[in-house]
């Protein structure tokens, strides 16, 4: 049976590129906003460009947190991309301290280091994956990043991948049960990104 993907539409960022990527891979997909609540799907993707507090606020205001909670409870695959990954954490520090959706323990803080002069960090960077048979063979591949903040998971077991900006490591992907987060944009990382997206959907949906 063909897998159905739902893209959470809470009003931030370009969600079309994700749709095009999923369609290109042959997956049925649709947007989910608060108006079409009876959709059936196998995987929920949380995209996002914009600011942490604004995204969390919109999701709460539009009652979409329940949908994410329910998806997780029902053991569906939930994927956060870029800001969509960051808001899965407990706390963010963009435009002051604010609470996230709290599926991962840890903070989201501004990337800062003596070696880091330019933000946002934009570019294709080699990424290393750990301890996951689906993703391990992507280690060393380059993915496209654009972000100024980084996730700092408190539990090291949650870290699925890391990468570097000017020799400073940051968390590139996280995993906990059926929740995944990618700091990079698989939908904007060329053929390797599409392959990773396909592998994720093929192998990580229960």
């Amino acid at each position: 049976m063909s897998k159905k993907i739902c893209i959470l539409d809470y009003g931030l960022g370009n969600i079309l590129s994700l749709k095009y990527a999923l369609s290109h891979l042959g997956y049925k997909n649709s947007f989910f906003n608060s108006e079409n609540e009876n959709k059936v799907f196998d995987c929920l993707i949380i995209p996002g460009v914009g600011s942490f507090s604004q995204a969390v606020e919109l999701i709460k205001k539009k009652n979409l947190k329940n949908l994410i909670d329910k998806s997780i409870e029902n053991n569906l695959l939930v994927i956060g991309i870029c800001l969509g990954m960051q808001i899965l954490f407990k706390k963010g520090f963009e435009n002051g301290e604010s609470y996230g959706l709290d599926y991962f323990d840890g903070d989201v803080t501004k990337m800062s280091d003596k070696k880091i002069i330019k933000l946002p960090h934009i570019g294709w960077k080699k990424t290393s994956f750990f301890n996951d048979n689906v993703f391990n063979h992507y280690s060393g591949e380059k993915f496209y990043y654009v972000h100024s903040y980084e996730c700092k998971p408190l539990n090291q077991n949650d870290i699925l991948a890391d990468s570097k900006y000017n020799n400073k490591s940051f968390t590139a992907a996280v995993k906990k049960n059926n929740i995944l987060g990618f700091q990079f944009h698989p939908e904007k990382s060329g053929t390797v990104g599409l392959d990773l997206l396909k592998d994720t959907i093929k192998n990580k949906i229960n």
Partner: protein
Amino acid sequence: MRIIPRLDIKNNFVIKGINLEGLRKVGDPNELGIKYYHQKADEIIFMDSVASYYGRNNLFEIIKKCTKDIFVPITVGGGLRSISDISQALNSGADKVALNSAAVKNPRFISEASKTFGSSTIILSIETKKNKDNEWEIFTGTGREPSGILLKNWINQIQEYGCGEIFITSIDQEGTQTGFDLNLLDYLDTLNIKVPIIFSGGCGNLEDIKKIKFKLKDDAIAVASVLHYEKLKIGDIKKEISNE
């Protein structure tokens, strides 16, 4: 360093001029966009080269078509004047937008745009050359109209207003294939630039890439003529910078 093909578009054709003038048709935007994607471009920039001059927005249909087959970030620029123009560009499949004339006319447009769409979505496009007082000045209307604003002041201002990247074209070098504007690059070094830049204008061969690659490690270059006239492929440039 990111390598970004720049497609200047006029009336549904990719065009190329010298110093932003004397435009010649070089191909179909959709075909060239897909070709450069398959050559492993890091991103692609589509600029409507006459929109800000004549006040038209004809790029969206082109973008809608080719974003379905291109899976790297796409920037759209040229003639974007309002929040709803930007929405329309993003809804056509663009990931980022490049603002120029409208931002010069009303700098608050930058902060409005970056608050609405996130600063990483907003690129400021700057066309510059030295004026008769030997100062770098910014120009609008594809390099034709002097703004009276000095580059150094504008760079500070747009960063305060919250742009995520700065796309800088040297008008004197643009389209000449005689090398990047090294004087401009040296000058940019003296300014306080905290966001990545996309440096554009003059790339003619791999030697030109060699001269700038260390300075622009966290930044990007935009290239057009050498790709359009098939003097270089993106792979050649990537090989040149592969020891990054």
